[in-house]
């Protein structure tokens, strides 16, 4: 089992992590951060995150940490 953490204040809501996740565990939500961007959130109930790190690899803002 694995999980990720998204730094909401760093995220710019580009959505690239949402399209690269093979399990579709990340979505853009309606929450707005201090910079005015709607941020990405990881499904907290997800049990099928593989820790593949793809979301973190593509994130242009290095906003994602992956734990495995």
């Amino acid at each position: 089992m694995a999980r990720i953490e998204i730094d909401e204040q760093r995220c710019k809501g580009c959505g690239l992590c949402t399209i690269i996740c093979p399990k579709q565990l990340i979505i853009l939500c309606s929450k707005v951060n201090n910079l005015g961007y709607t941020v990405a959130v990881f499904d907290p109930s997800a049990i099928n995150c593989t820790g593949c790190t793809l979301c973190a690899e593509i994130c242009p803002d290095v906003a994602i940490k992956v734990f495995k």
Partner: protein
Amino acid sequence: MQQVFKRPLSLKDVQTHFCPGCHHGTVHRMVAKALDEYDLQKRTIGVASIGCSVFLYSYFDIDVIESPHGRAPAVATGVKRAKPDSFVFTYQGDGDLAAIGTGEIIHAANRGENISVIFVNNTTYGMTGGQMAPTTLLGQRTSTSPYGRSLENEGAPIRVTELLTNLEGVSFAARVAVNNAKNLMDAKKQIKKAFRYQVEKKGFSFVEVLAACPTNWGMTPIKANERVGTELSDYFKLGVFKNVANL
């Protein structure tokens, strides 16, 4: 649980000014990671260029020289020759490297300077508002080609990696992209390999990265990311073009 993905040591923990979905951020992290992997942070001198990547010195936790527009390969030549034990790379956009800096890149490559060049090709001048670059695709609308680039007027887009591959002085040349899982893995590998060339004193190494500029393409980050995999990759073929030492 262990943290399996961390910010590289060579990348400062700061917010960047890049637009949402700008691939410069992804490439910055990848370059920093490659520096970490060869333990180069302390002896690296990065040479920044003019363009959206101008703040390299604010984002990388290494020594950086800011060079005049297009002149990064000439500055890097001087640094490397004066301090041969340092690790020297340039990071340049396509306006910087393929327009105003055409002379510098060709001659540094031809001399086979033992430096590494990261060339971020987003087919436009990002920083100044999306003007046409030598790499702008045919038909692409920019602020200085509002009807689309035409073959008759501006010529065909320059394939820089292929051009440099023909020079004797070039040891390693590759074109990569960071738009999907497969390309990200390959980009990581080729950037590392380019750096290995310099570490092992095997000559000039060059990596072109196809990159998205959602803002000046007038696209959402997701659409711009897609365009890298379609229009850009169709014209600018991905792959390793030269690898003389077979690393």
